[in-house]
């Protein structure tokens, strides 16, 4: 017999828990769901756009009634549970329906707070919480004229905006003189008020309600200062109170909410609770992002596995009013111990304020341009020290130009047909539609459903903004603890540490030791694990070709038609007539359709059949050439300029240095591709300042630059240091590469890695501490003894490996 799980509260948090549970343990429980509302489960957040007429109720259903049937869940809707008999483990509803349970999940949400002034129980006084309230408002707007909204917070403003769009004359009454004062400071609050006034809303700021006037229905509102205004409906949106009366009546311990531990269990361990009704570590929450984190933990625990614990959440806020772009998170007021950085451009309607304490972000508030909101939020949650880039903090993460999106900072004002994702051709309207009709909440979900931001990632910021403006603060930003992939809950760092500490030398060993939840892993985790075991244990670990992306397995780049491209190495960009002749011969012999000079100073033979690869490599090997690793997460090219060898401005021998560096570092596997360049003087013709490791010669020696990136998001290098001798250049280079190899996450290039760990950290390891530098360089050279081998020759010389390239006999 299966155990019985009963859920009380058919809302967002409770049903999310059930969905998470079905994903990991689909057959574990017989599930019964009680909901007081007469519907399946819907996206409460999107009631605001429904009120505004932008969406319909059908658009916002998350789980239709047929979904419950398909998943064998008994839905008992329109029935309110009013008693829990914990001794016999049975719940009872008002009409006498009862259901027994082995485990119980309480997700009763919260109740809108109604201020107890005279007249607050008159017909026409409503709250804004569920479909019923929205229906009432919509029908009132058809025949009535004056609406008064009490409360200028998130909910109040969204209600007011919706009623205005429905043609009512709307006045918002607010107790203090700043709107949304819990989310905005005085300046941004005023900017918001101005925008909303321009949209036709009226405000009565710093007014306290004394009574709702009317005999048998609402007629008006009277304030403490004696003013009285007309009202046909009054919407109370002054706050919510966790709904824990049911739990309390069953003797479950409650304070401001139902008190739960880190696994979302109440004082009765058979009874779990999630959502707005919960109090966890003294906190209650009123946004869905934290509730979804709770749901995941509760589901894991109900499924009797997982290492998940809920440790509380930080939340950020967004208002879902079309054309209003605001963001706030954390403590944005500050005090004596904090500093503010402020950017204010009134005529462009832009205001940004970041509050720092000891160079860490405590809070941020932004108006008009919120594209960097998620970045600040991330820095805040991670507690990142921002001193390394403090001077450019206010200009945002992408002020150097994402390809395509550099200038775009206000998704809220974009029209539906504007292209967001240039790689996959996805427009804003496609994304908004997918979010509401498919019930998406996270960036990952938008990626899988729309393909937006799924390729180069340069539009990620815009997609997050669209998520935020559609879901308010409700979208779940990628959490700080990001697991490697869906096969595990562990992060890259945790996996690496364990591989090292436990001396795990194969992918299988890692998956077994760390309890992977899939048999074989997947295309995301296996290449990462393969890299981690190889780089941690260069001597002991054995490469697993089946866990490599095809390019690294075939040692060539796969093309869209399934052929391959072949790029032989030209050390430092130098070549000889002999090499060129061999390339020309190979191109003719294997009918290569395209021969192209690459952006990396060498030659690409494109359109080679897989079966021909080993033979072509043999010909190139015979002429002294080896693989250029144009396909690998490894050293690509070392670009050079002519330098002191020929150039009238050259201060050092850049070609020689480039060749030396390439010969010493090729062949090694790295977290991502790695590019170098050496320029002979500060004119920098080799573009060394957008490379992972760039060397620029000066009269007195060499400047070493790190963390540069062309590509999707341009990032110039940071200056690491200056050195005098050629030997030093090499030692610093090896040490830097090794630090990157040991520290970065798989598929993280040096630019994002340095932004994550900080330039100061890199300097400490590589520049300031000679002993560490030498040790790093030594470890690199040690692993190079094994790695610096030509993979082409290895295949050419092995009959078994050669066979892998051959298509089997023609049949049929």
């Amino acid at each position: 017999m299966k155990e019985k799980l009963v859920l009380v509260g058919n809302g967002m948090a409770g049903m999310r828990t059930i969905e998470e549970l079905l994903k990991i343990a689909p057959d574990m429980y017989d599930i019964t769901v009680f909901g007081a509302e007469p519907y399946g489960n819907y996206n409460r957040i999107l009631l605001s756009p429904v009120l505004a007429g932008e969406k319909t109720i059908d658009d916002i259903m998350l789980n239709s009634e047929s979904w419950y049937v398909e998943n064998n869940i008994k839905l008992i809707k329109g029935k309110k549970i009013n008693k829990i008999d914990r001794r016999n483990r049975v719940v009872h509803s008002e009409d006498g329906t009862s259901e027994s349970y082995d485990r119980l999940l309480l997700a009763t949400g919260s109740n809108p707070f109604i201020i107890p002034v005279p007249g607050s129980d008159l017909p026409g006084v409503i709250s804004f919480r569920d479909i019923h309230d929205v229906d009432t408002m919509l029908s009132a707007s058809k025949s009535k004229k004056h609406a008064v909204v009490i409360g200028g917070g998130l909910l109040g403003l969204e209600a007011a905006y919706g009623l205005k769009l429905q043609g009512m004359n709307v006045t918002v009454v607010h107790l203090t003189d700043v709107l949304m004062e819990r989310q905005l400071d005085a300046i941004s609050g005023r900017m918001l008020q101005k925008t909303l006034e321009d949209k036709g809303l009226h405000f009565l700021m710093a007014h306290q309600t004394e009574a709702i006037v009317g005999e048998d229905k609402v007629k008006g509102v009277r304030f403490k200062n004696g003013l009285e205004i007309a009202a046909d409906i009054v919407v109370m949106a002054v706050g919510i109170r966790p709904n824990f009366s049911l739990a309390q009546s069953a003797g479950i311990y409650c304070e401001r909410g139902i008190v739960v531990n880190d696994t979302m269990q109440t004082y009765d361990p058979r009874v779990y609770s999630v959502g707005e009704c919960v109090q966890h570590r003294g906190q209650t929450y009123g946004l869905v992002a934290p509730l979804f984190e709770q749901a995941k933990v509760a589901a894991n625990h109900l499924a009797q596995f997982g290492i998940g614990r809920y440790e509380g959440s930080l939340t950020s806020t967004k208002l879902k009013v079309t054309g209003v772009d605001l963001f706030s998170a954390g403590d944005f007021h500050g005090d004596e111990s904090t500093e503010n950085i402020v950017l204010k451009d009134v005529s462009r309607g832009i205001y940004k304020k970041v509050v720092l304490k000891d160079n860490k972000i405590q809070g941020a508030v932004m108006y008009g341009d919120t594209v960097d909101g998620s970045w600040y939020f991330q820095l805040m949650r991670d507690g990142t020290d921002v001193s390394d880039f403090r001077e450019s903090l206010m200009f945002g993460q992408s002020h150097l130009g994402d390809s395509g999106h550099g200038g775009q900072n206000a998704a809220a004002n974009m029209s539906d047909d504007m292209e967001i994702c240039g790689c996959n051709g996805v427009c804003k309207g496609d994304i908004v539609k997918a979010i509401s009709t498919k019930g998406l909440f996270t960036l990952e979900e938008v990626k899988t459903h729309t393909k937006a931001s799924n390729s180069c990632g340069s539009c990620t910021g815009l997609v997050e903004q669209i998520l935020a403006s559609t879901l308010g603060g409700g979208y779940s930003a990628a959490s700080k603890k990001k697991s490697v992939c869906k096969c595990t809950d562990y992060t890259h760092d945790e996996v690496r540490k364990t591989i090292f500490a436990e001396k795990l030398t194969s992918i299988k060993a890692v998956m077994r030791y760390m309890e992977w939840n899939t048999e074989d892993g997947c295309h995301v985790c296996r290449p990462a694990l393969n890299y981690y075991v190889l780089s941690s244990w260069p001597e002991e670990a054995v490469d697993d070709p089946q866990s490599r992306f095809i390019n690294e397995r075939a040692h060539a780049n796969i093309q869209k038609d399934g052929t391959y491209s072949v790029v032989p190495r030209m050390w430092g960009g130098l070549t000889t007539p002999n090499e060129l002749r061999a390339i020309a011969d190979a191109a003719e012999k294997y009918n290569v359709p395209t021969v192209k000079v690459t952006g990396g100073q060498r030659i690409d033979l494109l359109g080679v059949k897989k079966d021909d690869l080993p033979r072509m490599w043999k010909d190139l090997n015979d002429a002294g050439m080896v693989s250029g690793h144009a396909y690998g997460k490894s050293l690509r090219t070392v670009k050079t300029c002519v330098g002191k060898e020929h150039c009238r401005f050259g201060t050092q021998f850049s070609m020689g240095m480039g060749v030396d560096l390439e010969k010493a570092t090729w062949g090694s596997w790295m977290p991502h591709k790695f590019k170098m360049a050496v320029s002979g003087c500060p004119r920098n013709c080799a573009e060394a300042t957008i490379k992972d490791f760039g060397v620029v010669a000066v009269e007195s020696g060499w400047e070493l630059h790190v963390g540069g990136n062309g590509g999707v998001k341009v990032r110039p290098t940071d200056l690491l240091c200056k050195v005098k001798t050629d030997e030093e250049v090499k030692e610093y280079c090896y040490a830097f590469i090794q630090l990157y190899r040991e520290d970065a996450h798989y598929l993280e290039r040096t630019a994002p890695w340095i932004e994550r760990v900080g330039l100061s950290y890199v300097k400490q390891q590589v520049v300031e501490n000679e002993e560490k530098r030498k040790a790093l360089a030594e470890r690199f050279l040690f692993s190079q003894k094994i790695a610096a081998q030509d993979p082409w020759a290895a295949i050419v010389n092995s009959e078994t490996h050669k066979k892998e390239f051959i298509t089997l006999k023609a049949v049929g």
Partner: protein
Amino acid sequence: MSQMFEVCGVEDIPVLGSKVVSANEGNIAVFRASDGEFFALKDECPHKQGPLSQGIVHNKKVTCPLHNWVISLETGMAQEPDEGCAARYPVEVKDKKVFLILKAMD
């Protein structure tokens, strides 16, 4: 009429690996799952004809090397929310040899 062809020995395909067989009707990819079961699909991804044989195999699925669609080896169907299907072929193993039956299943 269906025909059965010997493809290769069981050990010629590594666990979680694949082989390409060229046939009149185009290339066919033969896969070996981690439990030793063999599968065959037309070597064309339903998305943009990427060669599925070159993808990473996991849990009876293969990830296409071109744009990471995940295709089930058991049904040929693309994993949701992507939509599409690659033709399947029956495979038999006898005496440590892999045989392909050239009649696509639906």
